[in-house]
């Protein structure tokens, strides 16, 4: 893992001291709310429906046990005993008090954490593949790139007041688990014909009220040119992105309105004017960063673990857990495990302080003191010895973290929605809970197979509904909460936006509507097709027909009841 050097340490401590001063000036009236708000947002502090909310950065989703124990301590001391992992691999506390926030930031700084780049119109915390450094289909670990971008973008003097927020994701793998095509910039590490490593650069993707799939602006960028090239992209955006209308201010709108070819030409023109060598990171600095992400000291082990195979044969629950939540590791004898924060009926992404402490112990003992946060609001133990899996499973089970549903229909992404969020137009979490309860039966979940459902409680799309195989968007209609349903969204390398099935429906009808959509899938499915593969083949039409039939039957039933 990356460790702070003296510059990182000083930078973070200075920001805490600055914010402490800003809070004091706010409280004594020297700063008005309008003046203070952009300052608190620069430190991840929002004001929500019931309380303040503090968003803590988890750069590229990597944490260690000491950090998680500190988060547990903060949750118990300053919040209500839990935290919430988000779709940007961050962690939110829902109940901090303004007067306590400077102290919380100091506690975070003690464990090399902060809230910088979690809000405001800056380059946000860079996200990455949760299986970085572990996956077999990886060209190169994306985290050194993400860390380099963190250092380059933190307080970059030119890019601290962008037209709008700016999100970058990096993957090093063939299979995209970081949703790079729906980010402002998506980077994919790849090799060219000569075996040289570089990046495919994708710009202008995004979700929100105007969802767009990103465009490939550079097929292959040599690795050592990264910062100068991104600086060119940022300069074009910073000078030409719209500042007159916040709904048209993201780079996706600029790329769309300018046109892909013209945008590419402007970036290349800007790039040709830059003095690359003065911007790009020196090779020794890139190597220094990369060294922090060297593989841990794996043991040399056989690929197959007889101990695990025997235990799986004896224990059906363990067997299901490994089958569903296990991920093939590049190192023989090891496995990566997804910890789904999705127990049936739980709040997606929530973790209690007790669970944090227990999980910190597990990560420390069994996973080289490291774990990851996923954009699906789950956690990953990246380096578990297969021989240790039965013990890990038992320890997880003891604290309610052994849910064997990673990637299944009950592994739902949901934004906080109207239960917490000041921007929400409808509840999101209770919809996820109801769907999970409807499909709680394990055998049924397995029969349905991989089916990512994603729920947002407003058009801003924090729940990524546009790229859910089934997407649910909560809106307000006629003074009531109303839910629109889409199918066919995909956040992977086959990125696609979902298509709406029909009119919006009431909250209580959502689980039955999902049942109808699943029934259509099972009827249309050929061979071993997953849900998204079936939708890709058939298009949305059969699903629209099934949904329309559901709406009509529902209307007939409610008429009969009256």
């Amino acid at each position, binding site marked *: 893992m990356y460790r702070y050097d003296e510059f990182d340490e000083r930078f973070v401590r200075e920001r805490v001291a600055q914010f402490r001063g800003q809070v004091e000036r706010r409280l004594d009236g020297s700063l008005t709310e309008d003046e203070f708000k952009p300052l608190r947002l620069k430190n991840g502090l929002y004001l929500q429906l019931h309380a303040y909310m503090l968003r803590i950065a988890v750069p590229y989703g990597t944490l260690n046990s000491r950090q998680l124990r500190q988060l547990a301590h903060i949750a118990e001391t300053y919040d209500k005993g839990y935290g919430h992992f988000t779709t940007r691999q961050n962690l939110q506390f829902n109940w901090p008090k303004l007067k306590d926030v400077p102290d919380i930031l100091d506690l975070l700084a003690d464990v090399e954490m902060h809230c910088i780049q979690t809000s405001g*119109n800056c380059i946000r915390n860079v996200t990455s593949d949760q299986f970085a450094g572990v996956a077999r289909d990886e060209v190169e670990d994306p985290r050194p790139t993400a860390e380099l971008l963190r250092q380059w973008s933190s307080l970059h003097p030119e890019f601290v007041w962008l037209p709008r927020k700016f999100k970058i994701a990096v993957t090093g793998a063939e299979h995209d688990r970081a949703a790079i095509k729906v980010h402002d910039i998506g980077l994919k590490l790849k090799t060219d014909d000569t075996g040289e490593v570089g990046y495919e650069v994708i710009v202008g993707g995004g979700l929100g009220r105007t969802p767009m799939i990103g465009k490939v602006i550079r097929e292959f960028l040599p690795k050592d040119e990264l910062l100068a090239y991104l600086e060119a992209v940022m300069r074009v955006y910073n000078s030409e992105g719209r500042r007159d209308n916040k709904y048209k201010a993201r780079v996706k709108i600029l790329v769309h309105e300018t046109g892909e070819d013209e945008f590419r030409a402007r970036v290349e023109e800007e790039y040709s004017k830059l003095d690359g060598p003065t911007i790009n990171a020196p090779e020794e600095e890139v190597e220094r960063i990369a060294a922090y992400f060297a593989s841990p000291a794996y043991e040399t082990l056989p690929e197959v673990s007889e101990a695990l195979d025997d235990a799986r044969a004896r224990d059906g629950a363990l067997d299901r857990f490994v089958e569903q939540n296990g991920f093939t590791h590049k190192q023989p004898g090891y496995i990566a495990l997804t910890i789904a924060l999705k127990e049936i009926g739980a709040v997606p992404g929530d973790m209690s302080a007790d669970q944090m402490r227990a999980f910190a112990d597990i990560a420390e003992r069994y996973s080289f003191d490291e774990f990851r946060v996923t954009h699906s609001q789950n956690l990953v133990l990246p380096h578990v010895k297969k021989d240790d899996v039965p013990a890990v499973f038992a320890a997880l089970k003891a604290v309610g973290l052994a849910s064997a549903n990673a990637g299944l229909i009950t592994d739902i992404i949901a934004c906080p929605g109207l239960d917490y969020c*000041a*921007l929400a137009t409808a509840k999101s979490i*209770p919809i996820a809970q109801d769907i999970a309860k409807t499909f709680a039966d394990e055998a049924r979940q397995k029969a349905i197979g991989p089916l990512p459902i994603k729920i947002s409680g407003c058009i801003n799309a924090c729940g990524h509904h546009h790229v859910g195989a089934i997407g649910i968007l909560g809106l307000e209609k006629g003074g009531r909460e109303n839910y629109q349903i889409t199918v066919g969204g995909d956040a992977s390398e086959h990125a696609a936006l979902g298509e709406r099935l029909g009119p919006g429906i009431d909250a209580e009808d959502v689980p039955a509507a999902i049942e109808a959509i699943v029934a259509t899938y099972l009827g249309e499915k050929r061979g071993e097709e997953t849900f998204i593969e079936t939708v890709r083949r058939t298009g949305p039409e059969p699903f629209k027909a099934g949904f329309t039939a559901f709406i009509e039957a529902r209307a007939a039933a409610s008429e009969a009841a009256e």
Partner: protein
Amino acid sequence: MAKDHRAGSKVRGDKLPAILMANLLLEGDTVFLTDSGWTLDPSAAKIAHDAETAAAMEAEGKAAAAANVVVDPYLVPVDLTEGGHAIARHFRDAMRQKGPSIHPDMGKQAEFPPLD
């Protein structure tokens, strides 16, 4: 930065009766205006039955915001229960009167008697 207006009730039509809601600057908690300052207790909120009272309450809210006591004060149209309590007409405002629906053990609903 574009200006967000997170505050303000989304109720259309008749705006009375109404209560005045805000967040405490220091703590962040949702609070309600009374005849003597602000309360955390939704059942103790002062209710405006006429436009004049509502306007006076709104002015008091703005003054409290200017004095750095509260943030984002706004009038919330309500219906009255048989017990005389004010229930927000819009589900968003009602969520603020109670606390998160997914955590009955948190927020107003955990700390104060129900509004009935």
